[in-house]
């Protein structure tokens, strides 16, 4: 994970919070791209909120560590996978 990287949310997604979980709905340009709707768990919902085009990924990780009782190594691995997913569906860049 590049801790200095700053990610910005795409304008081509719609999000909605339900019962503390964020649901992400991407816009599509072809039916070939049709895919899943994404329901984030509590941790990833907080991580999503922290991605604001200002904080670095290192900042996001530190804030998550302060909010959740989790080991740094485990959190970094999960955050890394979450970011890869978001990049792959073009929800962040």
């Amino acid at each position, binding site marked *: 994970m590049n801790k200095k990287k700053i990610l910005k949310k795409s*304008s*081509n997604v*719609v999000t*909605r919070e*339900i*019962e503390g*979980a964020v*649901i992400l*709905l991407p*816009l*599509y*340009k*072809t*039916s*070939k791209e*049709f*895919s*899943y*709707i994404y*329901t984030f768990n509590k941790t990833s919902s907080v991580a999503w909120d922290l991605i604001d085009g200002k904080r670095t990924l290192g900042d996001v990780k530190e804030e998550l560590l302060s909010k959740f009782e989790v080991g740094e190594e485990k959190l970094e691995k999960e955050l890394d996978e979450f970011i890869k997913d978001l990049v792959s569906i073009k929800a962040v860049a």
Partner: protein
Amino acid sequence: MTYEMFLNVGDIVTKVTSLSAPCETEKNRFKYHQFILKRVPPKIDIQLNLTVIPRYKKFKQKEIFAARRDAPKKRHRFHNRILSRNKPPDKEAEKYLGEGLDWRMSKVGKKVLMEGGTSGKYQLLLDEDLKKGALFLVNSDNKWKTTDIIYGFLQVLTIFYLAKNKLGILVHAAGLKDGKEGYLFAGLSRAGKSTTTRIWDNQPSVKILNDDRIIIRKFGRQLDMYATPWHGDYSDYLESSVEKTELTKLFYIYHKKTNKAQEVSPLEGFNLFFQTLFIPVWDKNCLKFVSNFLLDTFLSKPSYKFGFKNDKKVIDYVRSVK
């Protein structure tokens, strides 16, 4: 001399003006009679000037959405049956639209262009608000049928118009009126919508709206569900179907060995019912409206996931669900 036709689906009235009357069978005319108004209605929502042309017109367009036949078939996905069909378009349509394409949506300046080639070849050039436009039906015979409109593009236009004007949603669902109650049975393909309709059809006090597509609109605190002309595997009810009724309970259905309904939380309900909605996924405001309507309006009614057994006992079970 011009010919005028008024189609009413979900209380959205589309006026079609043409130089010629449609050429169609009595059977079709009768099948869709409840959606074709006999008199000039007091309000018209969409006005289309129809011309039959021998070949597609060329426009300087910027594509914003393309419906392909090779769309992925994933379970938990945006529902896209409306957006892609099994039948391939004819060669002329495929050549014009591009290989593997069923229909597409484009921008032509500030106008919206819808073009299709599978269920009738058409080009529909609409004002930005979708309320007025030129309809070109591509046919070398210089003839047209009402089904060119109903099955050509009206379904996509309806979902777009409903969402863009914040009026309602189209759901992949069967709907029926049972006395003062209105039940919606939403589900994916083969979940049991037509089966459910067969079970309930011809029961005393029961009227069917549709076995596959239902429009939901909100009026004050009331949610109404509307019949549509787009039926599924079962269509015996069409000639006697009721136009609309108030929605009182909604079910996300699937086949099971015994009947069991469980009330769902808003999050679970969103995830289940979202799959059954038809959504203009190319338009951010529409996507926002549909997701808000689903959560804040639709799911405000008692909502259940419902595994059901295919026999008449399910009728008493549904009536008893509290």
